């Protein structure tokens, strides 16, 4: 059973200046009794949420309000400074698509490597399925990624990243996947993933999008919960599709 449990979680993000990365400075600072206290910024402030299977949480707020940091806190990238962060279920963080890509490799090898990085054993069947989703020609599998246009590259990366269902799906900005035809398909797939994932948390500036997909929206301000809006069940699909094609 997937669940996310945050209780009074705080995260002090250390602000490392150029000097803070210097061991000499640090040691000399001690010698001359300079205050070597690290400056920190409270990126997440006393944050408590409880999410069980079925939760679709949207995170809204201005830039720097802590949306991405909160997602990383849940994903386990940052340790909480105080409070409790507990999650059960496998987390798929899609906070950036390009991580781990090697442009010199052919597309198939990249897909295999990306699958291995996310702990999956790549097989030919999986590869074929991913490739079918990209709608690219079969022979392009054997081409190095650097020969792909940015749109094609995005298709490959997106198809790989979303090939498997997740218990907990963390999305930073609804991924913008270039050309129009594919973006409709991509959105459909993401929506399907959102439906099969037990818990989804999306950080986005796009309020309309959050209203479409989420059942509650948390407005963040300086790392705190400014307000929480509970929404009814998301509007059925055909409406959204019309919205996209319009």
């Amino acid at each position, binding site marked *: 059973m997937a669940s996310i449990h945050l209780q009074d979680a705080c995260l002090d993000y250390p602000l490392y200046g150029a000097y803070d990365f210097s061991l*000499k400075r640090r040691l000399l600072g001690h010698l001359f009794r300079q205050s070597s206290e690290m400056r920190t910024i409270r990126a997440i402030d006393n944050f408590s949420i409880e999410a069980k299977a079925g939760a679709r949480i949207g995170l809204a707020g201005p830039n720097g309000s802590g949306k991405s940091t909160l997602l990383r806190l849940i994903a386990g990238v940052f340790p909480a400074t105080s409070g409790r962060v507990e999650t059960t279920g496998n*987390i798929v963080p899609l906070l950036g698509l390009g991580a781990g890509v090697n442009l010199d490799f052919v597309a198939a090898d990249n897909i295999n490597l990306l699958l291995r990085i996310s702990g999956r054993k790549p097989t030919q069947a999986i590869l074929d399925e991913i490739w079918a989703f990209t709608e690219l020609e079969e022979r392009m599998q054997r081409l190095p990624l650097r020969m792909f246009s940015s749109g094609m590259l995005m298709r490959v990366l997106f198809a790989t990243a979303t*090939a498997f269902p997740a218990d907990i799906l963390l999305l930073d900005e609804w991924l913008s996947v270039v050309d129009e035809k594919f973006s409709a398909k991509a959105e459909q797939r993401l929506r399907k993933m959102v439906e099969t994932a037990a818990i989804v948390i999306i950080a986005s500036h796009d309020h309309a999008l959050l209203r479409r997909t989420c059942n509650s929206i948390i407005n963040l301000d300086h790392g705190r919960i400014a307000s929480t809006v509970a929404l009814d069940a998301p509007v059925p699909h055909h409406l959204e599709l019309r919205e996209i094609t319009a």
Partner: protein
Amino acid sequence: MIRIEPPMIVVNEPVRRPSVLHIFKVYYPDLFGGTLTVIRDICASLKDTFNAAVLVCSRSGGERQIVINDVAVERVHSFGDVLSLPAAPTYPWRLWRRIAEHDLLALHAPFPLADLVFAFGLGRTRPLVVHWHADIVSHAALRFLVEPLMRRTLRRASAIIVSDPVLVETTPLLQEFADKCHAVPFGVDVAKYDRPAAQADDVNARGRLVLACGRLVPYKGFDVLVRSAHARNFEVWIVGEGRERDNLEQLIRDYGLQDRVRLLGSVSESERVKLMRIADVFVMPSVTNAETFGLVQLEAMAASRPIVNTALGTGVPHVARDGLEAITVPPGDPTALADAIETLINDPERRRRMGQAARHRAVTKYSTTAFKEGVETVYRKVVAEEAATKDAGSSAPAPHLQMAGPVGAIRIAAALAWSDMRHRYVRSLLGPFWMSIQMAIMVAVLGSVIGHLSNSSAMARLPMLAASLTAWTFLNSVVLDATTALQGSASLIKDRALPPVIFLLQCTFRQALFAAHNAVVPLILWLALTPRDFGGAIVALPGLALFVICTMALSLVLGALATRYRDIKPIIESSLTLAFLASPIIWTSEMIDRGSTVTRLNPLTHLFAIWREPLATGHVATTSLIYVLACLAVLAVAATVTIAHLRKAAFWI
């Protein structure tokens, strides 16, 4: 890919019973005791629905595979007990190998040796049920080492079976997993304790026989019982064997109780049943919460005996309740214990009443059927859940997740390193062999220069020079790579939430692959120029392994440090150059002053010596080995601290 699924065969075959592997530290015939009785009863009572097998340790040597009561028991050799744990180094390995053969794992906790296997994420493919027999009470100082392991095991477990609900409330570790805990009280076969004939002497008016049973170990509190007999007039018989025997005998002599207190040693089960029937009072004087239930008091209850037990925070005072079936006294208090015993000795009517109440409770609350059904329900549920998730899994593409735990991290690091190596081949046909050519040229040049410097034959020394250079290149590149590895993988750490340690391990793995390419040069030279002493080469292998492990630990520590403090990187670079010149890597032993302090203290001297000496002479360099092991111990501590601090690495990059 063709998957063959022959339904016909499945129909023809009888339905296979799922098999359970019981995991515990010891089993019959090496020992008798409450936990073993429970395991035996589970195996026997569930034999129609589950195939049982037992994997345990044994000191006695003898057969590795034996069959006890139709149950296959595999015994792993143990060298004796260390801190109440069997010293069986191969047990975790054997357990890991056996896991795949069974459908369900039943761990009888506490058993840290098995926790080790589960904590490292091995055996995830099979569902696990933990029978929680007791918390670890002895060696409390070492608890901090074992508790994280136990927590990981419990987190991974599908269900936890305890003997009494109160254990969940009083054990902090179980509270964390309260939703998985199932209370299944042990059962007792009351028919075994039925009296064959007349009931007349059921309660002896003159009776003063006090019985206690259990292994002679400190937590059973038999010393308290012996003390309580002092200056009273009841008789105490203690059934059981164990390491406390000498202490207890000494205690009995000290108090001069030889005529009234007897240690009966081990007795057969039928004998014990008889003793239970003739005893007047049954005492369970246990002093710590290691006693969670007290199966033996339940047996005494089945034999209609009144009980004296202790007020522990476990199921003990709930099985036989104060004032109803027992008198409960504070643990470790000889006077209170003696008073309670005397109260019962002096009041035959009360003994009879309590005995009847005890028997009634054993029959109604603790039947073997209820126990069997309780365990079976949990087992079936867990196996069914596992099958359900497997079915759900097989319909999806192939969601076989290998992510969790150190094993997953190593897998990912290896995959990344493999891809790095392939990257070299993508750019050029020769790939990393370009570096080998470079290595060959370097060896040739240095070999000729040094050959002129010293008198001895340059050709004979070339293989060792090439091997040393290969090893040095490995160490040098691993450490240098590690200083930039985390920054280079920032997006994978921050966007895909991969543990930073993966990328430090990746450096060692990648350079090991490159070193394997470079090793062609020394290998060819060695085969061509020396008499090929394979014995020496084999003796050198452990030293070489130590070399690699030391390099890996060093790269973990320095890699993390250089990421946190950026000014360390240039220091590391210049130190490596200095170390290269100050160590006997290209220099031969005649060219340098072996006695110089720098050479002797330089860890690199010894790190190279541990595998070069065996290669050259066939003998292990003992001093160097000790020096390296000491360095490795320090590095291991530093690496452990580093890995703990790596949680914060995402802030640094």
